[in-house]
């Protein structure tokens, strides 16, 4: 235990923790929204993240022919390259997420209400995707070219505010506000809220369930895809097991904030990002990956509905 690192670098750890937290928040959307409407842990969402991270890098290397040795870009070229990476990752992740629902969950939903069955199917999808990528990449990690020169903008209380982490925070906030407006102000968003409130009654009221559910998976996938882009921008590396490593932490974030609750996922994600950063400073980075699990167990034991309570509207009876 070494608390000196924590006190010395408190501001910089906090800043990094918040950036990591926003990545968790965006991945957590894929869990929390689906859980909201279907009461199902969307296990395969972690692999959606993994595919998004590979897409981000492949857009840069295959479409724009950047290599690890390339110089960072500037000006207009930088903007459209990074936008292409972001949009590419979001589209692939969104489409994969919708396809997963159709292939792995839709049939089961029509036939049985046994949650174990859907859950096992979801685990199957997750394994298939990560194994397919493991074999395609021969387990090798894939590095990303550095397009954005990571200059320090300002230094606050000894913390270097780098341009990439600031970018993550700003864009994530924009995306989350858009999502919040979508869910609360639009007709489709109202449908999502209705289904998460009462699945059976909303069907009786004439809501097209399949459409709502596909939309939910699409939004979850888009958020997860954006998270993958931000992750690559900051950490510049991915591998086939990245979904397992980050996806489950993001799930923890969703549970921490109250699964099914979008604003809860926001609080949970930021909290988890900070806790992980502080914990790895005190205990050493080798313990970082189990911090999330320990927190998950503690939350479920003492406050199983999370900080903000479960569900978009109300927890089931």
């Amino acid at each position, binding site marked *: 235990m070494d608390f000196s690192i924590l006190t010395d670098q408190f501001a910089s750890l906090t800043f990094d923790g918040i950036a990591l937290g926003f990545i968790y928040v965006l991945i957590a959307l894929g869990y929390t929204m689906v859980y909201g409407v279907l009461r199902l842990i969307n296990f395969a969402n972690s692999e959606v993240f993994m595919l998004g991270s590979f897409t981000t890098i492949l857009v840069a290397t295959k479409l724009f022919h950047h290599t690890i040795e390339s110089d960072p870009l500037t000006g207009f070229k930088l903007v459209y390259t990074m936008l292409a990476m972001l949009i590419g990752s979001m589209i692939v992740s969104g489409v994969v997420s919708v396809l997963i629902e159709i292939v792995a969950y839709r049939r089961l939903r029509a036939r049985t209400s046994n949650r174990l069955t859907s859950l096992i199917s979801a685990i199957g999808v997750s394994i298939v995707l990560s194994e397919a990528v493991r074999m395609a990449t021969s387990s090798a990690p894939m590095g990303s070219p550095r397009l954005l020169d990571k200059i320090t903008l300002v230094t606050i209380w000894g913390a270097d505010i780098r341009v990439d982490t600031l970018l993550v925070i700003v864009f994530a906030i924009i995306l989350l506000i858009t999502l919040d407006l979508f869910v609360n102000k639009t007709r489709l968003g109202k449908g999502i809220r209705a289904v998460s409130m009462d699945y059976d009654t909303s069907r009786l009221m004439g809501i097209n369930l399949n459409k709502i559910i596909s939309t939910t998976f699409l939004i979850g996938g888009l958020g997860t895809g954006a998270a993958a882009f931000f992750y690559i921008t900051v950490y510049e590396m991915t591998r086939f097991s990245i979904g397992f490593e980050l996806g489950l932490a993001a799930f923890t974030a969703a549970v921490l904030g109250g699964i099914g609750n979008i604003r809860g996922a926001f609080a949970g994600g930021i909290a988890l990002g900070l806790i992980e950063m502080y914990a790895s400073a005190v205990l050493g980075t080798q313990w970082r990956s189990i911090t999330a699990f320990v927190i*998950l167990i503690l939350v479920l034991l003492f406050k199983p509905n999370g900080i903000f309570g479960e569900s978009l509207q109300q927890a089931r009876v």
Partner: protein
Amino acid sequence: MSFNLRDWGANLWANANKWQRYVIAGFIVVGAFSLPLLEGTFFNTPSTPFVSVLFYPIGVYVLMALGLNVVVGKSGLLDLGYVAFYAVGAYTAGILSMHTKLNTWEILPIGIALAMLSGLVLGAAVLRLRGDYLAIVTLGFGEIIRITALNTKSVGGANGITNIPNPPTTLGFKFDLDHPRNYYWAVLILIMITILIVRALSIRRPGRAWEAIRQDEDVAELMGVNTYKYKLWAFIFGASVGGAGGVLFASKAMFIAPNIFTYNISILILAFVVFGGMGNIWGVVFGAVVLSYIPEKIRFISNARMLLFGLVLIIMMNLRPDGLLPRKKREKIGVAGGKSK
């Protein structure tokens, strides 16, 4: 399907008298013990001697699948961290053989006891949770055990523990590299004991309680079943079998390291249970034998085996959620009406 192997087997057993049952059971036992005779035939595996394959992966995985079956198949509790108990058993064998002079057979009960204890601790904490949370918490527990072993210097860290002794010569049976057959027989005896215990429990109060919990936990609780207690017992029983598998594995492999005990093992065992038929002993044995043998026999599948098992999970859940050999029809009455929540 008009012909159902499960029902055919069940009827054969049900219609047999006492002596016919002894004959059937005798055939199964003798057949299982004489499997090493198939060495050198069509069943040979290309890169590992067939008799070694019979012990690991087949024997050890059949044993563990039987243990997980009680948790997932019989009680409907999705445990994604079953590898944790396997690791506890294996590390018990490793640590005790490092610091004491105990032999494998003396370590076995200690390994089982410690696995049960960890099952009790985990179960007591998490079994009050709803089913789908349970899956992810057990997964987390499996990772916690693995990463703790990885970061603990006194158990070798990433290098693991080497030079774990083989079991001593027992009743004239030698246990070393030249006698893989004896290992197979040892695990077979454990498998048979496990099957007998599971059968005995299934037809008595715990079995009925598990079945009730699996079908509808709330109703079971209302009908007076102490669901928490029986879920905990299912968990502990599963843990004990996983621990036994771990001790045996460590004493044969002589070497253990944290990277052996990954999440993939938990998924592997789950795939065996799901493939053969959740809740049905013979289905699970069949599933574990077939799915652990195929990657050994056909080498190019070996690298893709996790992919194969993932596909097995998706396909089985979508097409045949009860597995290839589903549980008896009699037990399924409640499921037919189980549409509503």
